[in-house]
């Protein structure tokens, strides 16, 4: 009786083991690219490394771009974990050079994947172009890498970034956060940066961005229950609610107000004035 029991137990245990084994064997998680669902925009080859730049988008687009980076050691073929990276895109224009608003690059839950964003103000052209400059260090060594990138207008040509001079004479960059618009009350966010000089674009805190969505194709009608965007310190973003009552082309008219409520840019929509000088667009 005892033996039967132990045999049975052994069988059971081995079965469980076997099945566990099977489980962990099947998907090759270790080797799978954690960024497989994103688009590989660039491979920057430098210093025996390949820096892979991924994005949700299929191209470098003017406006907000979120990037994911991986650094591959070309010798060992493995990806480098726990590196420190910083990014500085520079646009080379015929008369000058400038950078754009960008974030620090941080680690993600996967130690070999890093992420950050930049907001390109304008697309490149035949004479003017963007360079993506990266500085990265690990194991006490620091490297530089640079690659010319092609920043394009969005494929749908809809406006998602505004560069403007406010009534305070300062230059600002206002970028819409990516979203999937729905016929609903949508979460809606934007980022606002001040251009201190050609290279520095700190985020602006405590302003207000009022929104007035309109459908120019349908008598410029609006929608109810929108919420203006207010600053949220934890995300460093301006968050609000955008309600869209139908699919189609919407123009989100904007006004930017500083901390004392002065309008820096943008106009109200009236019967005479169909559009603000500051706006985002979307079509779905």
């Amino acid at each position: 009786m005892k033996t039967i029991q132990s045999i049975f137990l052994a069988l059971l245990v081995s079965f469980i083991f076997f099945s566990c084994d099977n489980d962990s064997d099947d998907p090759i998680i270790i080797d799978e690219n954690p960024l497989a669902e994103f688009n590989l925009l660039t491979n920057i080859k430098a210093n025996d490394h390949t820096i892979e730049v991924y994005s949700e988008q299929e191209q470098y687009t003017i406006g907000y771009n979120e990037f994911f980076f991986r650094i591959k050691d070309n010798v060992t073929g493995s990806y480098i974990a726990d590196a420190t990276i910083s990014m500085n895109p520079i646009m080379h224009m015929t008369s000058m050079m400038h950078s754009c608003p960008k974030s620090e690059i941080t680690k993600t839950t996967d130690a070999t994947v890093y992420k950050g964003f930049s907001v390109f103000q304008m697309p490149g052209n035949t004479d003017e172009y963007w360079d993506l400059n990266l500085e990265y260090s690990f194991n006490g060594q620091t490297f530089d890498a640079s690659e010319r990138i092609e920043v394009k207008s969005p494929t749908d040509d809809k406006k998602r970034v505004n560069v403007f001079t406010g009534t305070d004479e300062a230059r600002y960059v206002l970028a819409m956060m990516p979203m999937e618009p729905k016929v609903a009350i949508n979460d809606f966010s934007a980022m606002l940066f001040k251009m201190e000089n050609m290279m520095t674009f700190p985020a602006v805190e405590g302003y207000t961005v009022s929104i007035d969505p309109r459908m120019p194709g349908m008598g410029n009608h609006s929608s109810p229950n929108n919420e203006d965007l207010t600053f949220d310190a934890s995300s460093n973003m301006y968050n609000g609610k955008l309600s869209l009552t139908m699919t189609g082309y919407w123009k989100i008219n904007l006004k930017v107000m500083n901390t004392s409520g002065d309008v820096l840019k943008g106009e109200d929509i009236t019967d005479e004035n169909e559009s603000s000088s500051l706006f985002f667009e979307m079509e779905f």
Partner: protein
Amino acid sequence: MKIFDKTCTPSNRWSLHILCYLTVMVFFAHQWNGSAQELKVDVTTDSILPINLQEVILISNYKKALEHQLHQKPLATLGTYLEASKKVNMIKRGAYAWEPVLNDMSTERLSVTIDGMRIFGACTDRMDPITSYVDVSNLSDIHVASGQQGAQHGAVIGGAIDLRLEKGNFKPEDWVGSVETGFESNNAARIVGAELNYSNNAFYVDTDIIYRKAENYVAGGGEEVNFSQFEKYNLSLNGGYKLNDDQKLVASFIYDEARDVGYPALPMDVSLARAFIGSVSFVQTKFLGSFTNWETKLYANTITHIMDDSQRPDVPIRMDMPGWSDTYGYFSQAKLSLDKHQFLIKFDGFYNRSLAEMTMFPNDPNERDMFMLTWPDVRTLNNGVYGEDVIKLKEASLKISGRLAWQSFNVADEFGLNSLKIFYPEMEQRQNRLLKSVAAQYHTKLNLLHFTTGLSYGDRAPTVSEGFGFYLFNSFDNHDYIGDPDIENERAIEVNAETKIKTEKLEVGLSGNFFHTMDYIIGEINPDLSVMTIGAEGVKVYQNLEYANLYNITLDTKFKVDEQWTWSGQLSYHRGRDQDGRNLPFISPLAYRSTLQYNSKKFTGSITMNGAADQVNFNPEFGEDRTDAFTVFSAAFGTSFNLNKGGIYVKAGVENLFDTFYSTYTDWNNIPRMGRNIFMTVSYAIN
């Protein structure tokens, strides 16, 4: 007089056609052995005093081979039949698909059923009242019940209209057929109908088909009303099978299709309105001992309504607005007679799915289509029980009735639910409502004097539009409408009374009813909302008024001059106001009708005058303006003759004799009514 003198109508050409029709029909002559018996209008001949608040509009009588003769205009649309009734008015948006109004209340406050089956229109703009999905060819009569007397069919405030299908009766009549054809000069309406019935002791089948086609009509004075054309056909089949002396199975099927229906009062037309309506019933005469007339019915219907503006030359933006409505339902009812009591108990339920879309095509072809759900796939489930007891008293009777129903709504489409949540972020996807109705009706008789009075309470849930409508454009008040899912049920207390003197020769009745409706549902302007429809003035949201009061008073007289001549007259006054004394929309001004009728074996004829006083109590907030007084005259003449054993019945007449230009308070956006119209129908019976 210049009847045929109009230059802008095709009437000249068509009056020739009338003659052709006639000739052809005469040629067709075959056999005739049916005797044209007179129709009995009096259908309430029970042993106990009837609680007579029902009006029965007779459409055809199965026993007659030749149908529809009773009506002044036999092959008129169903709307015309209803309009000729005392209680029902029709809201008109064109020449077709009129919306019935009873006690100054329309679709949302009424139950309109076909043989007790619930059906819900698929149009967000009310272009397809249920009455547009049947035709006179397949109906025997229409029962109109006022107020809570209509609660047998559902939760109502204003009343119920039950359209009863014509059915066979297991008489050994073998094959019976008839052909009917009609023509109207004003809009060149051509009507062809045919009927073929078979019946024996155990089985019957009735088939009807009718086809109508009409061009634009011409208003009084000669102005053509564009987009008033229509074309429709209706096919119906019903059959019965006797299982034994006590049990039978009955099934019915209706297919109705209208195409190219113009709505001159609206900015859009209908390219297709189609209904499939089917039912199966089981009827047993005796049931559970002393119960009788046990009837159980299962039914289903599906409606497709395709609305577009493709025919309109000039619109700010092109749009398509299709809608669908499917309903599945059942009821089971039985009667029980006990001593002085006559009970009726009925269990019923339905499940409806209403979905409507709107796609707008931008003028810039590079832009994407704009899409929204105007009815967000609302699933309505209703289960209820109705009971009544008619108690026989000495020289009097009392009817007590009540309904209790449970109704739930489910917004099934996520897109639609999210759309509504723009307005109501907190709204629930599902909701339940309890609906109640109680009524007492008393009738007593003192010699020649009949006196009826009643008191009742009833409520109703909001309609799909009132609860869940999303930017429904109302061209009458030029506003977009938004539903409110959290709107309260509408509740009404109703009082009615009627006094009637009835002698052989003379009948005079004075009747009135009063509705005190609490939480009356109506759209009110919300100035904060931006219009969706180009050119609309504003947005209204359905709301509950504190209350509204409606009353209707009717004086009804009938005088039998002699065997052949009858005069009847009717005068009615209506008023509707809310708690602040504001006038409610679509309330009739003082209206009158007078008819002189001649009826003999061979000939029938009538002259009718009807009209209304100035509409003094109107409300511009609801898009109304003062409708002027009018009086119009109509005349009809009918005769039947035997030809070579075939029976032919011919009826001709003139409506709006003096070609008066007028519109009434029920004419949407004041579209003028039809000018002078000469009609003729020829019916031929084959036996």
